[in-house]
């Protein structure tokens, strides 16, 4: 064989073998995973549908992932579980319906793998998204006011879904009402609950 052929063979083999090893084999190894039965009888995880699926897409396009992970590490590894971010390590089963999984690599903000269980209040999430300072003074999370519509206060009382902004954040001219996107995003956040037990060890 001449040198070029050796070079070409080496170049192709090294990359092909790692593709098989790190992508194809894991895909094949994890393919048989199926939902598990939770203590309440439901099958978990559930496939995101309707507004939860929409909310997931909004989470993705607003880039929440660049500040928030969705993976709990093992008990002795870091303080994820001690911080109350989850009771067990995240398992591949938790992500069987996720395309792509939103694991994240950054924790400028807390992990959100179980935020639906930790913070089940809809109105809290709306206030927090509208302006994180309302619920978390000193937060550097961006405000998502563009997910809310202003409604002039000229008319009668507040619309049913208007945000109940605390004191100094109250807007004297407008009520602020969640758009469909804001509602879907909160639906998605509330759906994030992987507290069902999984026996299988990694």
């Amino acid at each position, binding site marked *: 064989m001449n040198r*070029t052929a050796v*070079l*070409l063979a*080496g*170049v*192709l083999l*090294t*990359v*092909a*073998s*790692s*593709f098989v090893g*790190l*992508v194809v084999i*894991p*895909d094949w190894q*994890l*393919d048989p*995973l199926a939902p598990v039965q939770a203590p309440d009888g439901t099958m978990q995880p559930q496939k995101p549908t309707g507004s939860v699926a929409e909310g997931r*897409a909004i989470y*993705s*396009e*607003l*880039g*929440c992932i*660049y*500040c928030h992970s969705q*993976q709990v*590490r*093992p008990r002795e*590894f*870091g*303080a994820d579980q001690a*911080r109350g971010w989850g009771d067990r*390590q*995240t398992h*591949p089963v*938790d*992500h069987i*319906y*996720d*395309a*792509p999984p*939103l*694991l*994240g*690599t*950054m*924790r*400028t903000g807390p992990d959100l793998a179980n935020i639906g269980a930790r913070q089940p209040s809809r109105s809290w999430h709306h206030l927090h998204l509208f302006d*994180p300072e309302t619920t978390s*003074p*000193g*937060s*550097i999370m*961006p*405000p*998502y006011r*563009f997910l809310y519509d202003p409604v002039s206060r000229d008319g009668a009382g507040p619309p049913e879904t208007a945000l109940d902004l605390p004191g100094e954040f109250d807007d004297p001219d407008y009520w602020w009402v969640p758009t469909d996107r804001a509602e879907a995003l909160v639906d998605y956040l509330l759906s994030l609950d992987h507290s069902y037990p999984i026996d299988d060890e*990694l």
Partner: protein
Amino acid sequence: MSEMADEPGHPEGDPGVPPRDRDVIRRARIDESCRGPVMFFILTAVVWLLVGTVLAIVASVKMHSPEFLANLEPLTFGRVRPAHLNTVIYGWSSLAGIGVLLWLQARLCRAPLRFHRLLYGVGVLWNLAVAAGTIALLTTHFNSVEWLEFPVWTAATLGVGFLGVMVVSLDVFRRRTKHHIFVSQWYLFGAVFWFPILYVLANMMIHLGMASGIAQATANWWFAHNVLGIWFTPIGLAAAYYFIPKVLGRPIHSYYLSLLGFWTLALFYNWAGTHHLIGGPLPVWLTTVGTVASMMMFIPVVTVAINHHMTMVGHFQKLKYSPTLRFIVFGAMSYTLVSVQGSLMALRTVNETTHFTHYTVAHAHLGMYAFFTMAMFGSIYYLVPRLLGREWPSATLIRVHFWCTATGIFLYFSGLSWGGWRQGEMMNHDTVDFQAIVDYLIPFLWSRSFAGILMTVGHVAFAILLWKMWRGKEPTGEPALFPAKGAPKREEDSLHDRPPESKREESS
């Protein structure tokens, strides 16, 4: 003997012309053949560097002052940040990398580039695709798969476009007029195969859903790690392997070390990607493989470091006057640093602290900026005067460029490494309130914005220099070297120098 030299009536084939002048003419012809397309790649790359820098500053300021430009959805942090990454990766780094790759390959093969129209087509296509992809990130839905956020149609365009680069560089490789293959050529040869394979496969697995669940995450990091390790790194190393001996006018220290360095890099880099998922929800064997491969990376890294250092030894004073060498050596040293740091970060005990923090971001810029970007700056300082037949118009602007970017990245790296490490430590103590960590980080985030402004000043100086070069009509005569004692009249790497790599190499 070159192909062209056989052309009848050509001065290179003319026995009356002395061999040394024949070399000069041959090199001038190769540079001539690169001028249009390579300048196109480099100039548009620098436009993307400027766009990416603006996006970087916006993202950086938003992190400590979240009310900055907060009410426009296209400028929300979660959109600007991927727009920054994708413009600097697929715009600046890849376009500059392609330009440098093509020129180096032509020079080392001693054959002119062909298929200019194809290259212009590829250049235009890439630029349009990156522009459309970036606008899509700012305005429409995208999947937040890190490093692969571009919509499928953008990715497809980039992938197809790259085939053109492959064709042209393999064509020149096939027509090489020396039997011997230089170290730099192995890296460049590998890179033109590796990038399209990685990019196309990863997009298929993830965006076309050919893998599912966690396998998409491993595909994601197989790609994102490899695009650094076997696309940008080989180009950066090829540049260092070419320019250090070239500017010094002395051979590379050891051919055999280069050989070892290349093959161990190809072997181990490929398997290291899962170190991005340590502690994550995947079978333990996968992250263990990533850690082991990362440790093995010490071999290529140390061999490259020894090789470059031994070549430089005794010649460090040349850093005083050669802009090319200054940037390239800065890059080569950063390569050693970032790789040693990376191998350590792949250890479970270290990763436990650093994984989710700004420490990783500091490492990322040590790699993509202090190593790769600086190596590209150095290469551009060398090749543009040769392509355009003019010398850089201002040594002062080059100095501004070097010192602003060098101090900028130093500040960037040290601030975020310190802050990021403490961030990780605090995060691993559940007694520290999360908000206390956020408060602690704010001064460090400010230091990054400040560093970013310094780097921006450097980039603007560089853009002005390039613009003047491009627009300049007359040859400016004197080369822009930094005046220093013992500086030669011309940079050693003038048109009258020896072939780039070692005697030892050639005799091998």
